[in-house]
């Protein structure tokens, strides 16, 4: 059993993924390649370096990355500042990151033991207790590292922390099964109901995902489902109706909240840092009209008897007078 995982970000005090205030671990590796993904640094399973040109203090005064790299000439500079790495030659050895004095090279992903995670978790215990919060794993897809999640969540439950797993559930049931005994709450996405389109936009079909969601519901698991609403991709009537049908007919009342996450241009900077092209570049939207469309979709779900909110909240907003 693996007691270490590769974590690319730890967010303390997040309120978006699960109830209350939480410590959230973002794990490396994902089977999907959603075009709108805002965490491209999560895709590859191994640690990587990201390039942040604006933080580079310049080749002339520093040059630490070049000096430290065992592969030689793999760095690209513009106007004297580090602009990119030849990823075909980079072995992700992280030597340049270690040497960089300025956070221009960022390490995406580092080994953490369960105990290291627990030590961080314990530091904010009081906040969880007061707010009904706890620990969330996300990614990437945490089920890529299901052994680690199992070990981490087991340790969490042993100390009484609420656990929440946010996953694509694009994983074999045997992986899912490992974490379930220690998981209090599940968050997943319904990205697209048409499998061919799902494949087109995320790189995989949706059969396995839907099958897992059905099975989770059958086992009486409470779910928070999310639709990342992407203009022109999944906000059409047909997909929305199909989503509602699936929730009502196949998930047997196990969805406690459906959350609509409106598309935002997030993560462009991270794509750049990894030298990966940003596929949503072309999407230009009328923010207000789009927001109205998202609210309309929420009303539709609610009219079908599905508790649906815009954003990562579970409670209705009260409006100031």
């Amino acid at each position, binding site marked *: 059993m693996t007691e270490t995982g590769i974590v690319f970000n730890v*967010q*303390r*005090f*997040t*309120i978006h993924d699960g109830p*209350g*205030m939480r410590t959230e671990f973002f794990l490396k590796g994902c089977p999907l390649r959603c075009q709108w993904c805002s965490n491209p640094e999560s895709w590859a399973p191994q640690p990587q370096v990201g390039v942040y040109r604006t*933080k580079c*203090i*310049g080749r002339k*005064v*520093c040059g*630490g990355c070049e000096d430290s790299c065992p592969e030689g000439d793999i760095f690209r500079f513009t106007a004297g500042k580090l602009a990119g790495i030849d990823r075909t030659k980079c072995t992700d050895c992280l030597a340049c990151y270690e040497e960089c*004095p*300025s*956070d221009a090279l960022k390490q995406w992903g580092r080994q953490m033991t369960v105990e290291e995670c627990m030590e961080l978790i314990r*530091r*904010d215990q*009081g*906040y969880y207790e*007061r*707010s009904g919060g706890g620990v969330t794993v996300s990614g990437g897809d945490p089920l890529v590292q299901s052994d680690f999640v199992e070990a981490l969540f087991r340790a969490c439950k042993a100390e009484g922390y609420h656990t929440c797993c946010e996953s694509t559930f694009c994983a074999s049931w045997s992986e899912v099964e490992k974490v379930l005994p220690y998981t209090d709450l599940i968050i997943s996405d319904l990205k697209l109901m048409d499998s061919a389109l799902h494949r087109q936009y995320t790189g995989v079909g949706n059969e396995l995902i839907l099958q897992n969601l059905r099975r989770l519901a059958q086992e009486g698991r409470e779910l928070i489902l999310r639709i990342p609403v992407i203009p022109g991709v999944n906000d059409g009537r047909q997909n929305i109706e199909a989503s509602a049908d699936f929730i009502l007919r196949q998930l047997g009342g196990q969805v406690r909240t459906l959350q609509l996450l409106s598309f935002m241009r997030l993560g462009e900077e991270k794509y750049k840092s990894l030298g990966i092209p940003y596929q949503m570049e072309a999407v230009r939207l009328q923010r207000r009209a789009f927001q109205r469309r998202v609210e309309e979709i929420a009303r539709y779900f609610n009219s079908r008897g599905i508790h649906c909110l815009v954003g990562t*909240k*579970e*409670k*209705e*907003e*009260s*409006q*100031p*007078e």
Partner: protein
Amino acid sequence: MATVHTTARGTEPYDKVYCLGYQVHHEDWSPYPRINKLRQTFLDRGYDVDVERLRLVTESYQQHEHLPEKLKVAYAFENVLLHCGIEIYDDDLIVGEIASPVKSAPIYPEFSVNWILDEVQNHPFEEREHDQFYIRNEKEKQEILDLCSWWKGRTLDDYINVRLDDDQLKGSEAGKKIYQTNLYHYAGTGHLAVDYARLMRLGFDGLLERAKQKLAALDMHDPEFCTKREFYQAVIIMHSAVKKYIERYAVLAEEMAAKEPNAKRKAELEQIAVNCHAVAGGTPKTFWQALQLFNFATMLICVESNGHSISYGRMDQWLYPYYEADKSISKDFALELLEVEYVKLNNPTKLKDRGSMALRNGRGFGGESLTIGGVKRDGTDATNDLTMLMLEASAHTRMMNPWVCVRMHEGTPEELRVKAVECIRAGYGHPKLFNDGPAIKGMMRKGMTLEEARDYCVVGCVEISLPGKEYGWHDAAYVNTAKMMEMVLNGGRCIDCGPHCPRWSQCGALGKHLGPDTGSLDRYASFEEVKQSVDTQFEYWTNQMCSSLCVIENAHRALKPLPYVSALFEDCMESGHDLTEGGAKYNGIGPQASGMATCADSLAAIKQLVFDEKRCTGAELLEAVKHNWKGYEKLYALVNSSKVHHYGNDDDYADELFKFMFETYCKHIAGRKTPRGGIFSPGVYSVNANVAMGLNTNASVDGRKAGEAISDNMGPVHTDFGSHDINGPTAIVNSLTKVDHSLATNGTLMNLRFPQEAVAGIEGRDNLASFIEEYIHKGAMHVQFNIMSAATMRAAQKKPEDYKDMLVRVAGYSAYFVELGKPLQKDLIQRTELHF
């Protein structure tokens, strides 16, 4: 622990949502049109200099030059109260100002005139970059110059200057500004809360009666017979004048009522007259009269002296009996009266010298804290209707004053917590929150009983004080610990030591060092030596500062006794000792440290890079800061990067060093004796002095370049390169609660800023409430929030005219953002914006 509830209510549901963050072009926050009008009138009025007090005080001093000081101040006060112009403003329901028109700053020549003479002639108040004041005309300008000239050689400033030697001056504002004792060198002290409950019970007649009894009973065997006699005589002169002054308002109200065509306003004016007659000597019979008496008594403290932070004590407690007993008043009208008084409390305006102004921006007196909530003397929760109403009044007025402070404890009722959070979310910078746990512990460190300690109120920004019992000289000096650290780096010399320095000929040129040579970065053999050097430097400089403060304290005692306000302290009245003579039960001097995190991160960089990892040498680091990091870009980036340990990230490596700095400072201040028989009391807060101090501080090892602000209050470092705290709000809180806040018996201060979105919705409200609860539980003493994004502040910089009433929390106090100096605006924008 179980949720506690209260039946105390204001006029609105306790969970009413006001709004999220500052709203442009919103002028009608109050349900009472009168209040919105009064507020707008206030905002639209300009800031003047008023010559009348200067004229009347000078005239009196010239007539009474032969008298002892207590009588001099008494006759001067009397002359002002009997002859100053008085005015009753449209729509007002409570009357009385500080013997000058609204927003007009009187002059207090008793303290100092040199800066006035200098600034009027060479740096006109109206040409300041911020905090401008306008002298009404050339004739008054000349009068100010003439009258102030008479005072030369007669002021506290003069008394102090001849008593400080070069060792004391070289580190002060007259030298290298390692510490700044400006505030009480050039102006009054203030920073007190009187015993309002006793005043309400006795009235001015009761106080006069007591003074007369004590005077008659004086024993001629008492070696202090004469000074006590002078004290009681002064109290009698002053409080008799107060009665006449209040009667002048009664007469004016009657005259105005007689001429008033509007029946409603006429009735109001008649009631004002009745109220003034009632409280001129007697005790208040109604809630309205209690507020009227409060207003007169408080404003008059600012006629006697321009000491600021005249605070209102636990107002929901001492005022409550008058609210409860007044069967004629509706809750709604009680709230309207409170709001009238809130707006009115903004009227007093103080003209400060340039140096003090740089330490604390803002044209109000400042520091008028109004404390509510907390536990009673018996330890039970103190919440009542007024607690809730006073928060509503705050949300409805949204002005600089009063600085509402909610005392929190583990048993604070849910309703009060939610109401406080709703006010905080509205984003106007009030209220600040105080934590009874460490505050009560801190009070007991000052020698108070548990019952007394539980009765603490907040004075000024964050200073804990016992109303009517303590004269704490809070806020006595600002200490630039980053500049002290410079001495540690460079053998007791400034790192830019050279002929450009005004002190060069008497210091560097002679081969001297500014401070003791306790080693330098290129010579330390171990990190322990560095820590030892910090300790020795801090001892040296706190010695210079504290001994200077004792001189300043003696000057106040010698030249500017305060018999009027002393009479509002029971122990002064009983002992015959003025406040300046140590008449209060508890006395102290509280200087506060700035730049703690700058020092902590500097030490972390030295420890990690030089001694632990040996990534660079001490000599290199020293050269780097000597060159303002020029040519050391790699090192500069590194010390600012996440690869180096920084305070504020829940990282024990750096947090231990913050703790070391905090404890070293507190240790060298706490417990020293003051001339009034009190003890020194350390505070760790900077207000906005960190900005001005930064301007005078060379580059520091934490990655700060010369001139940038040093770290604020208990907050982490943010340099032009970036913020050093990157792990979010829980990490900051965990870092800053690794120190024992009660050691800082003069208070600690923490600013946190969240953008509106972070606290939106029910979840946002509940999370903020939970966050605060845990913050309190962890034992931090104070917290205040800015619910405002950097974007909003930048927008206000671009269109100041649209953001005239946008309050921001600066540090302990809220101020109008657009009126602040540019460097302070920048500092506020740079402070890390936190997200949940």
